[in-house]
């Protein structure tokens, strides 16, 4: 046994982060300070959906969403409160922000200045990856070309003015959440990075040296699933491919700049609502995949909370995830060794195979014109939908084992969830009201003329092709709000609706269960006189469309006609679509936690339009108490992540339509 004293020198651990933020800047600041006190070493800011999509808290589309999935930041005073007593000079802050990245970074820079810190000293990351927003996460605002411009301007600004900032965090994370296989994760994230680097390289002010520095500042944000050996090989393969792209495509020679730098949040997709305590183990194993191999070790790690599939995690739940990291880094001997897998034929063989396949898939995307084209023609989206459909089929059929879900379902009740509603965090319902009041107060106390002049200047600079950052920082200082800044860009660039990618999904081989439901759909359609028609809708600002897409594809596969218009629709638009399309049933999907407000709104508007007879079913991360409330409001069925059997859901939808049309 080796004594403490004789222990070899240990590597410095990765950075510990927890993706967090909720309710208000004040509440989130308290949470951050308590997390840092517990040994967290970096911050990861979650913004609410209005902030991410460029709306002030009092905009009609913000209703029900303020402070739900993150913190609302409307102006510089909000940002200042968020980092109160947290010296930005010493902090490393990751901001999950994309369409409005330039704005939130501007607020951050302006806040640092108020703290007396120069922008040149700031360290951190803006996610700033729009391609994956089109593909998976859904908080895009502007069309692809404008988005590429914004991203590349942030890159070219920070590389000179905020040199330790990671201006773009290319996310393969959300691709895996959308169903991507490891090969797709590698290929599409590389295609994505290339699409930005090509734009940056073409900028007149960017010379070879700048390009090399830019290449070195592009970081990645990866996912790590439960197949942790393959995930480790995936990370190794990405290292190799990134270096290859740097050398061959961009002529980078500086070894330091060629190194792939990435952070990880482990998989949320595989976390289960059934026997949720099993997730504690899943999360720990997934963390191993991205830390075990020194060569493929993550620079920073965020672990989700074990009860994510149930609702918002409490501080205690997040603490458990932090402790998992600390045990791995400080108690185990992981950091005492060099790479454990160098020379392993198995690992090298698997890595080479992934690399080869990924290179081919990357070439396919580049051949069709690159990532932007592959978004616009829905190629990548279709591939992801296909993979996700296959994954769900494998779970339904039992080909893929998920303990507690499709195997070993027999279990005693978990004492961890005995408290019911008490075992998740409830966002204070007054948060939205308070935020709107504080926004109004801010608007009243700012100098309106300054704000207006800053907006005018912003518009002029954008129209004249200037860099977005300087006028945005000036606007932040002048008291411009998130909604106002975004509106200027909306007016100049226009708004975008991305392809949903579901249309071309191949029809799955019908299992016996599927054939059974298909027969029922046929019979009911005969009775109804026309084919059973369903509207799949995503009300509100939540852009996580994977669930809605899978429901849409499954409904098609069982023989329904499916209307799916994509994300970010107001309840009024959904009701109008239901009327125009003459649907028999409406299925709504909401993952942002604003289900009560938005679903009730749809149900009320249906009644007001004389369509109260059209049944509504809802899916989402919906706690039991809320489900009861929704059912009282007239919702016919509520589905949560434990309802993984989509065929059974379809069967029940047939029941619901049959009941509604009986007699």
């Amino acid at each position, binding site marked *: 046994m080796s004594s403490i004293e004789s222990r070899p020198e240990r590597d410095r651990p990765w950075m510990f982060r927890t993706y967090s933020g909720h309710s208000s800047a004040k509440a989130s600041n308290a949470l951050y300070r308590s997390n840092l006190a517990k040994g967290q070493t970096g911050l990861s800011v979650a913004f609410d959906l209005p902030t991410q999509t460029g709306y002030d808290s009092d905009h009609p589309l913000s209703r029900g969403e303020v402070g739900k999935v993150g913190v609302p930041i409307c102006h510089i005073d909000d940002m200042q409160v968020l980092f109160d007593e947290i010296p930005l000079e010493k902090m490393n802050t990751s901001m999950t922000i994309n369409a409005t990245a330039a704005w939130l970074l501007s607020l951050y820079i302006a806040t640092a200045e108020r703290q007396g810190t120069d922008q040149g000293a700031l360290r951190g990351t803006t996610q700033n990856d729009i391609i994956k927003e089109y593909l998976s996460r859904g908080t895009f605002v502007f069309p692809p070309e404008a988005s590429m411009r914004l991203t590349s301007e942030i890159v070219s600004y920070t590389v000179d003015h905020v040199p330790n900032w990671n201006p773009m965090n290319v996310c393969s994370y959300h691709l895996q959440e959308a169903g991507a296989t490891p090969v797709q994760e590698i290929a599409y994230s590389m295609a994505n990075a290339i699409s930005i680097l090509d734009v940056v390289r073409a900028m007149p002010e960017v010379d070879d040296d700048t390009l090399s520095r830019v290449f070195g500042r592009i970081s990645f944000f990866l996912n790590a699933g439960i197949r942790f050996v393959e995930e480790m090989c995936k990370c190794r393969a990405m290292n190799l491919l990134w270096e290859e792209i740097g050398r061959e495509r961009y002529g980078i020679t500086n070894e330091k700049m060629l190194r792939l730098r990435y952070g990880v949040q482990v998989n949320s997709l595989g976390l289960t609502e059934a026997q949720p305590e099993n997730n504690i183990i899943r999360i720990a194993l997934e963390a191993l995949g991205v830390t075990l191999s020194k060569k493929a070790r993550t620079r920073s790690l965020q672990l989700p909370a074990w009860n994510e599939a149930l609702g918002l995690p409490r501080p205690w739940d997040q603490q458990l995830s932090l402790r998992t990291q600390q045990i791995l880094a400080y108690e185990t001997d992981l950091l005492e060794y060099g790479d454990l897998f160098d020379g392993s034929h198995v690992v090298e063989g698997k890595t080479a195979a992934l690399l080869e396949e990924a290179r081919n898939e990357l070439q396919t995307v580049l051949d069709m014109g690159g990532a932007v084209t592959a978004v616009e023609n829905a190629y990548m989206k279709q591939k992801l939908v296909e993979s996700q459909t296959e994954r769900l089929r494998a779970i339904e059929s039992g080909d893929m084992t998920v303990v507690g879900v499709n195997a070993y379902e027999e279990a005693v009740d978990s004492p961890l969830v005995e408290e019911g509603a008490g075992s998740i965090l409830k966002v204070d319902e007054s948060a939205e009201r308070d935020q709107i009041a504080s926004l109004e107060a801010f608007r009243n106390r700012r100098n309106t003329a300054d704000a207006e002049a800053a907006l005018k200047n912003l518009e002029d600079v954008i129209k004249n092709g200037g860099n977005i950052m300087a006028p945005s920082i000036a606007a932040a200082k002048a008291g411009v709000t998130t909604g106002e800044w975004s509106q200027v860009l909306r007016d100049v660039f226009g708004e975008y609706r991305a392809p949903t990618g579901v249309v071309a999904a191949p*029809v799955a081989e019908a299992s016996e269960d599927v054939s059974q439901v298909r027969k029922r759909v046929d019979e009911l359609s005969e009775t109804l006189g026309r084919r059973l028609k369903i509207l799949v809708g995503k009300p509100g600002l939540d852009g996580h469309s994977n669930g809605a897409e899978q429901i849409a594809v499954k409904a098609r596969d069982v023989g329904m006609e499916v209307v799916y218009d994509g994300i970010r629709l107001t309840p009024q638009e959904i009701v109008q679509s239901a*009327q125009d399309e*003459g649907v028999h049933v409406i299925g709504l999907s909401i993952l942002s936690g604003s289900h009560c407000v938005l679903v009730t709104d749809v149900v009320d508007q249906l009644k007001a339009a004389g369509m109260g007879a059209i049944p509504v079913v809802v899916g989402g991360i919906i706690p039991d108490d809320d489900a009861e409330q929704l059912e009282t409001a007239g919702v016919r069925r509520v589905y949560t992540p434990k309802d993984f059997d989509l065929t059974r859901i379809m069967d029940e939808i047939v029941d619901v339509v049959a009941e509604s049309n009986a007699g």
Partner: protein
Amino acid sequence: MPAEPPGAPTDSPAAGNRAALEAARKLAERVCAGERAAISQALNAVDDNRESHRETRLALLDAVAPHARGVRIGVTGAPGAGKSTLLDALVSGLRARGRSVGVLAVDPSSQRTGGALLGDRMRLSSTARDAGVFLRSLAARDQLGGLSEVTGPSLDVMAAALDYVFVETVGVGQSEAQVIDVVDTLVFVAQPAAGDLIQFMKAGILEWPDVFFVNKSDLGDVATRAAAELRAGLDLGHRRDPDRVPPVLRGSARDDLGIDGLIDALDEHTAYLAGKGDDGARRQEGRVARVEHALSARYGRFGLDQLRGGSLASRVRDAGAVSVERIVYDLGREIEAALRAGGSTGGA
């Protein structure tokens, strides 16, 4: 072979049926008044294929047929040509002119299962999703690559309520030949990539459109060349209307360029048809073609040959201002009767 002839007892409508007919006529009135809920309800009724519902459906269509004054426009072109974007821009442009607009999107994919995913092609921007725009999507169902059978009657309903009704199809050849039977004006969206146009010329698709729009004009020379090629091709090739050379316009739907000119060209074509003094010959041709298509699908060429009393065109004209579906039904009964009597001419 024809299906079993329907039983005779439905010939005299019962009292309940009369009430249903009255309801259908009332519904038609509300459609003509542009009431949104009524348009939707009427489209559902048109789509309702229950035998017990037949008289209601026909009564509704007969009642809207004489009022279907809206201009019907087909938008066609190869996948990727920018049809959806153009449609979006057209809808916004027409809304800015205060016109009401309907869009009927026909999903071309046909599944064994009968299921279909609709709506993805109707990615209309928020400005185009206002209260003056009515959107309905239809599955092509058993008509692989073509138009659903209810496309025609659905357009009839929408044209009775709205100023302009668009139907969007994918340019695969077969659907163009069918869409011309149900629209007044056919717009072809071309993308300026060489090769495409040659394919279309070969397929004979270019003889049908009334207006050409070369999209993505921001591509510069390629777009100019494509427009020139098209004009040359039109001069050489067959044209549906020998008296009129269809205009070839250029623009960019994405950047909202050339849309006003396109709307003007659509209106010009409408005025041209009205000014021809041929008593709506094009719509009449379309009605005849729809009747022929439906009857031959149901009874075959042999069945069609059973009809007496002049050409099919004259039979359709003689039927007056009733719906196409009524004519199909009535003539179908005649064919069935003739077939029951043993069939006369032709035959193998």
